[in-house]
């Protein structure tokens, strides 16, 4: 019997088929292992049932010239239809004003509704170009006008000085900041 005849016998063909199946099964196992981790639980929110949610989300807004001038990142964004609010976990936003200055804001939680971003829980407004930052527990930002404010105690820092107050307002485009209510400033003096 020649080698070709031996290979053609039913037994060998069955063995070859079995080996093929095993190999296929192995590949399938490999493939399923590389599936992305299953999405988190469908969020229940006191604002009601969300219609969609995004994970590792980045929202980018473009200005009239098509330049990306506002960016919001969050590991989890949830949208609730009845109030049209986006709720974000640990949001971080970056804004460029008309003069190209960079501003960043962040918080533990955030909501975005009608171009108004509200950050709560260790919220911070950072003005790296101007060299100052502001910490508070609740920060509001109108992303269209660049008006930021807080109605709860805030701490302004422009090292080496810092100032605490009960409320604050900032107009990012005009580079103006206003602190009000039991304002306490701490300023090192110039030395000779």
């Amino acid at each position: 019997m020649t080698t070709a005849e031996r290979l053609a016998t039913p037994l060998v063909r069955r063995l070859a088929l079995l080996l093929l199946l095993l190999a296929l099964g192995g590949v399938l196992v490999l493939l399923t292992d590389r599936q992305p981790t299953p999405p988190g639980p469908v969020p229940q929110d006191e604002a009601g049932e969300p219609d969609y949610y995004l994970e590792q989300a980045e929202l980018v807004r473009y200005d009239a010239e098509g330049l990306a001038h506002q960016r919001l990142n969050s590991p989890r964004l949830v949208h609730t239809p009845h109030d049209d609010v986006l709720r974000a976990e640990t949001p971080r936003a970056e804004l460029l004003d008309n003069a190209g200055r960079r501003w960043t804001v962040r918080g533990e939680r955030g909501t975005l509704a009608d171009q108004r971003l509200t950050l709560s829980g260790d919220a911070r407004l950072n003005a790296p170009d101007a060299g100052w930052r502001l910490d508070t527990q609740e920060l509001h930002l109108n992303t269209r006008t660049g008006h930021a404010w807080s109605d709860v105690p805030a701490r302004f820092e422009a090292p080496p000085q810092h100032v605490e107050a009960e409320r604050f307002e900032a107009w990012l485009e005009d580079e103006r900041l206003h602190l009000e209510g039991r304002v306490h400033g701490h300023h090192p003096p110039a030395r000779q």
Partner: protein
Amino acid sequence: QQSEPIEVEADRLELDDRAGTAVYSGAVEIRQGNLQLTGARVEIQRNDAGEVSRLTATGERAYLEQTPVDGERIQGWGRTIVYHAAERRVELIDRAELHRGADTFNGAYVEYLIDRRLVEARADAEGTERQRVRMTLTPEQQ
């Protein structure tokens, strides 16, 4: 004294990065060690390192007080008081008045060097009408 931080209490602070100004307003009280300055409005000038180089207090009359550990108490009034932090120099401008212990100095302009306790009074100051210099010096008790 000179390196002690300047602490400010006020109702409001307005910062304008573009104009480079920082203005406290509303019952402003400033302390640096034993020096105290009060006014309705105080503008702060900072050097490149962000340290306060000058404070300009204005009010009906701004007020300055210093209670040195070993020396006479200093009190000063003026429509404008300018405190130069690095030089420890004070300028009282317009209806200026300074009391150093029992001595008094009045005029349109009074300058006081804190650490050297030197006083200079003038009848003229920019932006004010002429105001005669008056001094009351109390002889030392024998």
